[in-house]
């Protein structure tokens, strides 16, 4: 999952970026409204954390422009303004959630994850496809009750795929949503991770959970494991 943080306060941004990355999210950071707007409108983010008081272009306008372009990316607003009016205005303008500064970093992470989950159509932190169970809070994966030991990247790929069961997910899409600009990425890296993931998920006597569709991408099979 890839998150965009638009925050002009350098130190705060550094901390949020570090925290988000530690929970396994890819994060891009924009330090002003215009850069934030440009990045947000690429449509590759699974969630956007937006500060309100931004140089160049206010958070409010970034949000309005995003919604005007019919981008449905969930947006969480960070605000130091207490007034109820501005919060109501923001929610009406298309914000999905807000947090007042000074906020709790853990709460921010939980809210971002919840936003991502809900935007993908899941309302609980535990996602399940057939006999596969993924806990997004503990970041654990179980198949038939057995905990699987996945690397962070493998976990993230699986998390992304499990959010989109039966859909064909291209390598490009995976790249866009799993890595931020700071990371070195190539499509063959994805292939390597997928192959590892497939091996770890594999249980004797079942069809592989992740299908590879040549030149198209990958698909998580829901009916897999039906004995």
């Amino acid at each position, binding site marked *: 999952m890839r998150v965009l943080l638009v925050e002009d306060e350098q130190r705060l941004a550094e901390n949020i970026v570090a925290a988000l990355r530690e929970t396994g999210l890819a994060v891009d950071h924009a330090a002003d409204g215009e850069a934030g707007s440009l990045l947000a409108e690429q449509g590759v983010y699974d969630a956007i954390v937006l500060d309100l008081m931004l*140089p160049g272009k206010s958070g409010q306008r970034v949000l309005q422009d995003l919604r005007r372009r019919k981008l449905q990316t969930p947006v969480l607003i960070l605000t*130091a303004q207490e007034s109820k009016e501005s919060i109501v205005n923001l929610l009406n303008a298309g914000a999905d959630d807000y947090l007042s500064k*000074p906020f709790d970093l853990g709460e921010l992470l939980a809210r971002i994850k919840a936003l991502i989950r809900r935007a993908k159509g899941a309302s609980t932190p535990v996602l399940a496809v057939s006999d596969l169970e993924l806990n997004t809070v503990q970041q654990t994966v179980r198949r038939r009750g057995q905990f699987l030991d996945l690397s962070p990247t493998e976990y993230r790929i699986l998390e992304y795929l499990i959010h989109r069961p039966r859909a064909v997910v291209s390598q490009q899409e995976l790249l866009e949503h799993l890595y931020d600009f700071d990371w070195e990425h190539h499509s063959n890296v994805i292939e390597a991770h997928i192959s590892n993931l497939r091996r770890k998920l594999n249980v004797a006597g079942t069809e592989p959970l992740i299908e590879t569709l040549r030149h198209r991408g990958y698909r998580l099979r829901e009916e897999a494991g039906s004995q």
Partner: protein
Amino acid sequence: MKGSASISITRRLVITVLILELLSAVALIAAITVHEWSVQLEIFDASLVATAESLLGAVQDTEDEGDNVMLDMRGVRVAKDAVFRVEDERGKILGSAGEPPSLETAASAAPLFRNTAVSGRDYRFLVLNGTRIVDPGKANGGVRHSITIVYGTPLRHVWHEVREAVRFFAIATAFLLGITAVVMAWLVRKGLSPVHELAREAERISPGDWQFHAPVSAKETAELRPLAAALEAALARLRRSFEQQKRFTSDAAHELKTDVAIVKSSLQLLSMRKRTLDEYSQGLALSLEDITRLESTVEKMLTLARLEQPVESCNSSTASKSCSLRDVIADAVHQSEPFAQLKSIEVAVEINANTDVRLPIDSRDALLLCSNILLNALQHSPDGATVRIAVTTDEGIARLTVRDQGEGISDDDRDHVFEPFYRGDPSRSRKSGGTGLGLSICKAICERAGGSIEIASHVGGGALVTATLPAKTALSDPTLSASLKAE
């Protein structure tokens, strides 16, 4: 209108007018009484004379030997209560009514009036000396009889007339007073209605709604116009200062919340999971930096709050406050040296070495002023530029000018740059290091000392900050400046 102790203009005006009216009425009635008295007395006297003369005319020849006279009362009308006596030169009483007092007879022929009491009543008497000639056709010219008539009637009638007149006027006056009171009260209340309208409009003011427009009626009333204008102006000033305060509070809250958010997130990030010793020490160092920043924001806010306190509270110590501008500038330049070197900016100080300008400001505040202006100039200067500091003096006024070679200042920013938390260029934002309080603090220091500060774009490019301060100029005494430096 509220409470018994309050003063009512309406009541006062009405009472004043009524008292004046009453006084003039009393004076008028007094004048009327005197006048009426004299008029009535004249009439009274005339009727006395007339009756007395008709009595004289009633003295007739008795047609006897002694050529005596008698009083023939036929055809003579005498008032009901009249008292009279008619006698001849020999003292023979020809006729009388009642008991007229014996009054000295006048030597002259002119009628003589006398007021006397007869049996407890006030009478006015006329003593008339007349002559009757019996048989005037005879050769000897007839017999002359000197007749003295004393005729009096009660004065009661005059009194009655005067009293009637006074009563009429008194009743008329009372009636007029009543009408005046009612009409006055109505007129005054009507005339004061703009005051009530003004009050009603003023009553609507609340902390949430500062809109105040004096009603037209108040503006059109000459007496109320200054009050309405003063109210409008005062409220506008209050509103501005209130809004400024509100903005300051909201900006300060924003600033503090952001700083606290940084500290909090730094610590929470550190505690998200177990970390290595290196990571912990690095995180702690960063957190300390964040807290230092929060501390500096708080400190600046408190400084500003202190400087904006009324001067009176510490007036006692201002007399002793004094510092040398030259020394303060030297300190400020020294303080900002690392920053200037970082941007390779040259700081040029143009100040007459022989002139020592002493400012009536606490040396810490003066240093704060100089270093804030200097830091602002350094922040807005491109690398390798020159910042020029100059001091000029003019009749007890010192002008400190600091000129940078930056991009100058727009007219928009010029009006707001001294407002707390105002940052000219939003893209520079907090990264430039300032909290946006530096120039506000400068302004507060200058204004506290009775001076002023302004910023303008220099014609030759860059911004020019000018602080104008009251100062004492003295040719520096080397021993004095040495001792000051030793402090």
